[in-house]
């Protein structure tokens, strides 16, 4: 969940329009091959030397220094003026907000053994709000969804997740919408914001977590702030986009009638972009939910924590139950906000018959909701969710049974698949990357970057390689890189097969796209659970989860690329007698080349953003380092360095693939 929106290719700078373009490309391919051959030869000779491997508990000076920084920050937290008057204040405000929301719906406060509003009140409010902003269908969905979470025996955890999500969304929108409006109005501000937003969105999520805990301590405040940072960019972008896409004539018409800037903004721009802004709010909520579950790594309360604890003890049933609750919450929030963005138009279409009744009905609904809140505040039966969560335990048991069954009866199949990929792809890659001398791998990466993406990408690669060395987790980085490569290859294979299929057939597109959309909305944790059941806790599970997470994006981009090939060109190829295979390989894929590179770029970034999640289920390497760093004090510095290494890998491949994409489209 790193990149919420696919970035379109921005500038198509014609690098050099050389007549000998074809010759150049051949020679570039040869250079790449030459680099790989030299690498393999040297690898055979120098295997196992200067690999810079570091055992799990070993530390470098940098890691120890980071530990010291952590300790000294901890010691001076209440004396350093920067902390005293700035960071601590922020933490206090956020903490108070989170605690307040929690005391309303999830956590007992003071003498009360239960939160202020019990389950009946929350379900009532959820239904009423969904109905008011959306329609009665999503209201029913919200009521059913929330009730089901209670029946699963996860009421309090769900409410903790909801409380954190709502607080984070509130804070995020507080900043994001004004900033978005500003960026929509001012070209200059937009130019300033864009690179920041790009950076915030391409960075793997976990990277925020470690430095944030350094400043804001582990817990709800850090989790909320990390979520805000992660969830605000889509809202800023989409708001700015919405303001910008208001037709110029309409603004001009208002101006020609003598509207002031303020009047234009309030009466024209904002109302006309409302629908799109609400879509931005939807994106923010989904991103926030995803991040809040991940933030369980830094001790954020809620469903994420249940999942993590279950994953760590390999309790698939419990993890599945909690994961299901996350999915239900995601579906409810997504549907409600989507309905909200379309409500006004839907109401307009259905005629004004209901509009006259709407106000009194809303009033009545509000009264009923108030009664429900009062009852849930006063009576124990309405405050504490009744029952023992029997449904939850049956779900967990069923999941366990299913897991055992699959492990018993399908283990032959899954193990064969796993071993085939592991020995066929993963192991060779891994040994090539981890057992080559560091300077050889570094030189090869820089060389490939320069050849594929130009000297600037090469320079970026050089800087990143240098910094990777400095982090002290070189060997782990290479292991992660190997899994990332394998996952990306699988993503691209899936992406090309399904993308081309979707691009060529509207029917397939219509069938698959909702599934892909849904897959992108899910918090990444949830993917792990079924694969953990299938493949056990290995690096392979992490790879498959990453593939499932990243493939939808690649498929969509490739499908759009294939669809954008002009119909006339395809028709011309058909009339020249091409068969389907020839059309795909000789016309559609070559013409969708820039979509392919973009898909590779996005696929890589998405896979990288799953590295830490993979660390929870035995992926090892950087993911494990980060996870261990959160939980064990003496590994804090190493975890921070590993997080940095993930960013460096991401930046390196992002720059190389983007430069390559620019080249191919030029």
């Amino acid at each position, binding site marked *: 969940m790193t990149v919420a929106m696919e970035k379109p290719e921005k500038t198509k700078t014609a690098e050099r329009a050389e007549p000998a373009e074809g010759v150049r490309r051949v020679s570039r391919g040869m250079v790449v091959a030459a680099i790989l051959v030299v690498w393999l030869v040297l690898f055979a000779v120098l295997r196992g030397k200067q690999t810079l491997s570091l055992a799990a508990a070993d530390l470098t000076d940098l890691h120890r220094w980071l530990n010291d920084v952590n300790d000294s920050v901890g010691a001076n937290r209440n004396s350093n003026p920067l902390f005293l008057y700035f960071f601590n204040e922020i933490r206090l405000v956020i903490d108070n907000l989170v605690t307040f929301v929690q005391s309303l719906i999830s956590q007992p406060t003071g003498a009360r053994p239960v939160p202020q509003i019990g389950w009946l009140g929350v379900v009532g409010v959820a239904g009423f709000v969904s109905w008011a902003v959306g329609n009665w269908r999503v209201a029913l969905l919200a009521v059913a969804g929330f009730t089901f979470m209670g029946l699963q025996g996860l009421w309090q955890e769900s409410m903790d997740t909801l409380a954190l999500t709502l607080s984070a969304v509130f804070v995020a929108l507080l900043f994001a919408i004004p900033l978005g409006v500003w960026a929509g109005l001012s070209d200059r501000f937009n130019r300033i914001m864009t690179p920041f937003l790009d950076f915030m969105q391409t960075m793997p999520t976990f990277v925020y977590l470690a430095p944030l805990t350094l400043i804001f301590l582990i817990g709800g405040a850090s989790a909320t702030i990390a979520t805000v940072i992660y969830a605000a960019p889509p809202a800023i972008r989409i708001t700015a986009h919405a303001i910008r896409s208001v*037709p110029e004539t309409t603004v*001009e018409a208002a101006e020609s*009638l*003598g509207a002031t800037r303020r009047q234009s903004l309030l009466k024209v721009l904002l109302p*006309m972009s409302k629908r799109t802004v609400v879509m931005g709010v939807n994106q923010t909520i989904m991103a926030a939910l995803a991040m809040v579950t991940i933030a369980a790594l830094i001790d954020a309360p809620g469903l994420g924590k249940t999942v993590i604890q279950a994953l760590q003890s390999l309790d698939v049933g419990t993890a599945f139950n909690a994961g299901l609750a996350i999915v239900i919450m995601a579906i409810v929030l997504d549907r409600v906000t989507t309905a909200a963005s379309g409500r006004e138009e839907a109401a307009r279409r259905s005629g004004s018959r209901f509009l006259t009744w709407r106000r009194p009905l809303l009033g009545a609904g509000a009264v009923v909701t108030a009664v429900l809140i009062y009852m849930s505040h006063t009576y124990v039966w309405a405050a504490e969710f009744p029952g023992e969560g029997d449904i939850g335990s049956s779900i967990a048991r069923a999941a366990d049974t299913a897991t055992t069954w699959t492990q018993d009866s399908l283990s032959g199949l899954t193990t064969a698949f796993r071993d085939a990929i592991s020995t066929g792809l993963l192991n060779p890659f891994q040994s090539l990357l981890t057992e080559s001398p560091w300077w050889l791998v570094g030189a090869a990466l820089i060389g490939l970057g320069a050849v594929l993406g130009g000297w600037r990408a090469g320079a970026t690669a050089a800087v990143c390689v240098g910094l990777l060395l400095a982090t002290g987790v070189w060997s782990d980085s290479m292991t992660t890189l190997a899994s990332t490569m394998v996952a990306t290859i699988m993503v691209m294979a899936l992406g090309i097969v399904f993308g081309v299929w979707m691009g060529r057939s509207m029917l397939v597109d219509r069938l698959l796209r909702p599934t892909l959309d849904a897959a992108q909305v899910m918090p990444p944790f949830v993917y792990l659970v079924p694969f953990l059941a299938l493949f056990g806790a290995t690096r392979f599970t992490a790879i498959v989860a990453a593939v499932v997470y990243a493939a939808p994006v690649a498929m969509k981009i490739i499908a759009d690329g294939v669809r954008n090939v002009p119909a006339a060109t395809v028709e011309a190829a058909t009339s020249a007698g091409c068969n389907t295979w020839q059309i795909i390989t000789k016309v559609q894929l070559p013409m969708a080349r820039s979509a392919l590179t973009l898909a590779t770029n996005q696929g890589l970034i998405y896979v990288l953003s799953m590295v830490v999640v993979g660390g929870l289920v035995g992926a090892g390497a950087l993911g494990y380092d980060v996870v261990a760093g959160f939980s064990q004090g003496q590994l804090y510095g190493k975890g921070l360095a590993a997080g940095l290494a993930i960013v460096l890998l991401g930046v390196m491949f992002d720059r190389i693939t983007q430069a390559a994409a620019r080249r191919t489209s030029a």
Partner: protein
Amino acid sequence: MTPVQTEVPQRRGTPQDSDGTPVVSVRKLWKVFGPKAERVPDSEELCGLTRRELMDRTGCTAAVRDVNFEVSRGEVFVVMGLSGSGKSTLVRCLTRLIEPTAGEVVFEGEDIRGADHKRLRELRRRKFSMVFQHFGLLPHRRVLDNVSFGLEIRGMSKAERTKRAMEVVELVGLAGYENSYPDQLSGGMQQRVGLARALAGDPDVLFFDEPFSALDPLIRRDMQNEVIRLHHEVGKTMVFITHDLSEALKLGDRILIMRDGKMVQCGTGDELVGAPADDYVREFVKDVPRGDVLTLRWIMRPAEPDDALDGPELGPDVVVKEATRAVLAADKPVKVVENGKLLGIVGDEEILAVVAGQEGDM
């Protein structure tokens, strides 16, 4: 190529302003886009360049170059040109939706370029309004609220502006649709909303920026008739931008033809057809049915001594098409008489030359 400006003959009983001062007068108006645009109008040398040369030399585009004209009260003044001729920029300069680079735009004796933001807003709110090619309606508001938008911005009370909006909605023939949303209406109806919005504030001048270009031909004809009707009913001064010559001839009391930002010719429709200023205008008006536009003034010849002077009389401003039957029916040539004075005569030959398209060397 000096623009030809001819005196305004009175047609269609256009009400002339009592004191004769123009409502809008534009003098030496320039709009140059690009870096350091203001140096272009000042420099004799740069003024002489063609658009292309100016672009190469300075990186500037001159959209409007040295345009002069006056619009009288109650007149329909049409600015015509092909796309890229600068006509839309010109009309936006008149209300400073685009800031002119140089020149004067005098509105009722006040130079608009000197107005500050507050005054400009006031002028836009009370004195002029505009109808746009792509309507520029607010999709989230009903027709009535769209029409009353300008009044709302002025701060008029809700009851008052609803009343006024209803009147205008009826005036443009939208009664019964006041509670619809714009996207429920056809293009022609949407433009009626745009028209109503412009009329609601009771402005002195209405600006039309290619208002009917986006409509299909039948609807366009309806809307043109609508504008003519409204002009008769409310008698507003109108400045109308179009790229369609037949629209210009149909609506315009006078027509200004622009090319590459410059004015080529300004005059009545029959002047453009009868005496095109250059080949560009001639090419433009080539396909116009001359009999529909030219008046007898343009085709009469001086009376020769052997002409019989006892034929019927007609005025000089009678359109050829309308005079055809009378001239052909008479056995003697028709006398063209204005205020009792014989201007010339028109015989079968002159009429047939126009109607049959024989008139070669104009």
